[in-house]
């Protein structure tokens, strides 16, 4: 199934900013992170279509996934 993946901050280094990717049905975010070689503990903020979810979240076709390392500011 097609999924749009967006990476931010240090996760872009050696990877990409934004990419259309294919994953098997019933894949989870944990599967996606493993594929990208991003440790779950480093992926502090996981958004699917703008909603915060955990790594166990099951992906659906055409989801937009945004992955962030720990960050803050203001």
């Amino acid at each position, binding site marked *: 199934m097609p999924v749009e993946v967006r990476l*931010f901050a240090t996760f872009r280094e050696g990877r990409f900013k934004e990419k259309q990717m294919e994953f098997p049905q019933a894949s989870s975010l944990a599967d996606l992170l493993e594929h990208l070689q991003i440790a779950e503990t480093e992926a502090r903020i996981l958004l699917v279509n*703008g*909603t915060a979810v955990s790594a166990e979240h099951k992906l659906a076709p055409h989801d937009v996934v945004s992955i962030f390392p720990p*960050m*803050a*500011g*203001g």
Partner: protein
Amino acid sequence: MSGYCGKILRINLDTGEINKEDLDLELAKKFIGGRGLGTYFLSEQIDPAIEPLDRANKIIFATGPLTGSQAPTASRYMVVTKSPLSGTVASSNSGGFWGAELKHAGYDLIIVEGKSEKPCYIYINDNTVEIRDAENYWGKLVWETTDLLAAEAADPKARILTIGPAGEKMSLLACIMNDKYRAAGRSGVGAVMGSKNLKAIVVRGTGKTEPAKADQTKEILKGIRKEIQENDVTAKGLPTYGTAVLVNVINESGIYPTNNFQRSYFETADLTSGETLAEKYLVKNVACYRCPIACGRRSRLDGIETEGPEYETIWAYGANCGVDDLPAIIRANNWCNEYGLDTISTGATIACAMELYEKGIIKPDEINGPALKFGSAEAIVEWTRKMGAGEGFGAKLANGSYQLGQEYGAPELSMSVKKLEMPAYDPRGVQGHGLQYATSNRGGCHVRGYMIAPEILGIPEKLDRFSLDGKALWVKAFQDLTAVIDSLGLCLFTSFALTADDYKDMFNAIVGEDWTTEALLEAGDRIWNLERIFNLKAGVGPEEDKLPSRLLNDPIPDGPSKGHVHRLPDLLPKYYQERGWTEEGIPAEAKLAQLGIT
């Protein structure tokens, strides 16, 4: 010694009198210092109902007991006065080096009274304190003023605080700049200096403060530094990308106000993100006094090295004005720093003007400048310059979005709370943060209780941002802890790594007390209530605990937070209850008795 210098410097610009008074240390501890102690003296020494730009207003520069100490980020000082923008208590915070230098000169606070007949500045070199002529500096921009005053001081270690032309002209958006690039930005505090004909304060201090418990302090601070240096946010996220790292996460969450809060998602936000800033314009990181985080950005554009822009600035001029041109944002930021304008309120006021213009309420023939259209990079730069210079229609904009909206019969288009423009988070998608905006004692402000931390960033734990459950208590807890940190003289960014217990340990070791964490947080509660009482006496009551009608009635039209409004009417009664206030939002007698204030 105990973290405090034990001295107040009182300067009367009416008479030229300079007095060094003893600070009652028991009183100081009750309100901690900085924001708390400054608010206490302001409340005691002025009638809160006065006109803020009248000579009867006072302006207080207040350090905390940890300012200038060995504690990490011990740079912060607070400007406390009555705000000419909001009519509330103003406490505007800044870092850099000036606050620590004041402490090293031997003063906890400066209280400036009255009004000088002519432009003047205050010169402090340890025990030497003088009121000097500033005719030659009046009208000059911040960077030139800073360089000239440093040259006159003939001491490279002298630290300079100054207003720019915006403060001189008493723009209600005027800030106070120190160390060239750091700002006590909000609430129009620069206009109060301007109203007193006070251009600048130069400080040089050669002393240092000593902690009450030296060995214990050394050990505790070692642990605190380790926590900051090992925390992913303070050791990696902030140093690598600065505060602008937030652009994408706030936008991807659909709470990034766009076109004056008409939308909350900006498709091209990444062009103005911290990642882009680091890639194209960053020269190096810069740090304030004793800061291991170094979130400051030294950036270069057009051959000019500057600092910033920070996240809130990028938003105010960027998405909120529909602009994705980062160089234009850097130029607008520079004009703010040079003229001494608050970047948040200035950008947000231009955004308000753009909506008024596009709705046909402001007419093209009355502005004599670039069309105020969303997306115009030219408009954000040139209108900022005109606002700073008080030129033409820019002079009207320079008094903020609330006055602008009122004048054009559309006050609902001012995205402000208590007349202070809200920063870079749409409350419709973060319920706790919206409650915090509505109840902040200085108006629309994100640094009175940064609920974005738990609601978006998962610090210290992740909360459901759309839920109301427990939010009133969370907001109160964040507001009280923030009041403590502001009053200690530390940077709020430490709270991404530290706990309330850590602040208690530092306070006890440096001040020489044995307080519980609960007692320290109660001091935060005391400070919050003191500010509330000031506002009530100033005529700014619970009726102003509100949000713009757009946020309560118009659902976010698109993006990841589509369909949501802010549910303030459901949250406010719970908040008053958590505060121990009456149903009407007035601090109850029993609460004030518990806190030891009236």
